[in-house]
């Protein structure tokens, strides 16, 4: 996979930061506006998929390798579980929204909803990482097949 034409590469270079920022925005403000961790994560994954398609596997490897993607995947899943377990440790129950009951933010602001923005970001990373992993594996598999 050597990548696509220079036009595609240039456009991708300009557009991808915005896509990434949009994905993070969608994930971060899920509790206020439509969106949330899942669509945000898929958009983040889509950004890297676009980069891979435009530039070819080898170029992207340095920025966002397969290994770092699957490490992100595992770590983000673990951090979601840990958020749940923290509630348990604090004696408020598994998956309790303990930050909301401790420090309720002002409604309609970013820092409201307690655990929710944190979990949303964790889910965003998780989904982004795992979907990029599966795409990259499929691409890799094709590359091996074509040899």
């Amino acid at each position, binding site marked *: 996979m050597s990548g696509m034409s220079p036009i595609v590469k240039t456009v991708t270079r300009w557009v991808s930061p915005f896509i990434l920022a949009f994905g993070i925005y969608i994930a971060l403000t899920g509790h206020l506006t439509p969106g949330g961790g899942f669509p945000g994560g898929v958009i983040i994954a889509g950004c890297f998929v676009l980069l891979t398609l435009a530039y070819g596997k080898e170029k992207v490897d340095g920025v966002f390798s397969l*290994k770092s993607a*699957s490490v992100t995947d595992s*770590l983000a*899943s673990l951090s979601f*579980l840990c958020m749940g*377990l923290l509630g*348990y440790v604090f004696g*408020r129950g598994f998956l*309790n929204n303990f930050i909301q009951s401790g420090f309720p933010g002002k409604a309609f602001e970013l820092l409201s909803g307690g655990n929710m923005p944190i979990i949303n970001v964790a889910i965003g990373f998780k989904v982004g990482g795992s979907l990029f992993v599966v795409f990259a594996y499929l691409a890799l598999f094709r590359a091996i097949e074509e040899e």
Partner: protein
Amino acid sequence: MLPLFVAIPLGVGFLLPLIEEFRERTRLFAVTVLLETGLLLALSLVKFGEKSIYRLGGWPPPIGINYVLDGLSSLVLVVISGIAFVTVLFAMTYMSKYENLGKFYGLFSLMLAGMYGVALTGDVFNMYVYLEVAAISSYALVGFNRGAEELEASFKYLIMGAVGSVFILLGIAFLYGSVGSLNIADISVRVSEVSDQSFILLSTALFIVGFGLKAAFIPFHSWLPDAHSSAPTPISAMLSGVLIKVLGVYALSRILFNGLNLPSLTPQLLTWIGAGSMFIGGMIALGQNDLKRLLAYSSISQMGYITLGLGMGGIFISQGKPAIATLALIGGLFHLVNHATYKSLLFLFSGGVERIFGTRDLSKIGGITRVSPVSGATGTIGTLSISGVPPFNGFWSKLVIVIAAIWGGLYPIAGIVLFTSAITLAYYLKVQRELFLGEVVGEIADKGKISPGIYVPLLILAICCIGLGLLYLPEIRGIVLKPAALALQEGSEYTQLVLGL
């Protein structure tokens, strides 16, 4: 304590692939999972017999999701943990030459988490989600060997399983549309207030098809023999031993008995599906030559016994014969426990046979008792229990089912059960003749010597096969099996426990 049942396997399942990204530590993975299952076994034994609910996130039942621990779920928890522990003990030696074990044990752990989730949850949609966790990891595990046949079996299983899941989801959608709630206890309160039951019946039908696909009832069984014979041996033991029971029969009966208050005609339908699976599964098993395929078809047949017991219980409940209903339900659940032990024993044993001879074709091998007396003896105990020979546990559960059928006046059912027992005996006698007795046939591979790591799990399960016969004694039965049967029978008790009405 209850969230730990799901949180520990989830944590291990997330962690092992992460460690494998950096280093392949086969021994560490196996020991971690062994410790995990051991811990969970201890936890489920400590919790046995307790009746409690746990509110996840602290929200009261109809609003949040809750765990329910009653007689039935604590029994199922012990079965899952016990079989998982023995299977991991076996896999430690058996799987040690494979690669990607971090992913293997990770998926195994996630499958466990899914099963615990299904066993504990008190919410229909949550049951669907965790059922998917367990099912998806089992699809991947079936194809773990990555040979052509394994992949094909896995694909077939995946398609059938996905269709089943879609049907279950559609059933949930109908149920939500007609009662407006997802909590099982809340549903059972609201269902009795709905005037026109036709959509409840429709969602019941969808549930029976969906869970029937997961449990491999007879018209939906075609994936099971392929999947169970292609999976790595420890996974076959898990799939046949617990997965189809938890995902199929347990989940279905939880929803039908506790949630929908047994809509009319469903008990009859369940009984006849059970009788059909039992009979047809047995007949097909009779013609099999591959040991694992024979065991797989016999699983279909034995699942029939369990479904039949539960269905008969439902019939007697609706006829107003509570005592006999309890007996029939006890029969079904007793058979569930027994089948879990001896079918995992036999699948693990078939793995040992494959190690010794390099093949599972019954016509090409024989005389295993002379090659390896210990595994021969344990295999004999397994076949004798499954065919229902008196001192072993399989006999007692079949006896309870037959007694319930006769007392309740369902003579044709009793006849079918007896006839199927005869068929079961016939095909296991064939296994006896071909595999255990006589001279050594077939080439013995180099690794013919069976190490303790392989036969110790077999011995544990064989001792369970003999020991579980004790559950027939009324005193022990009253402690272990009766609360489980009553959990299904007394729907109001369940509602009270969850909603605190």
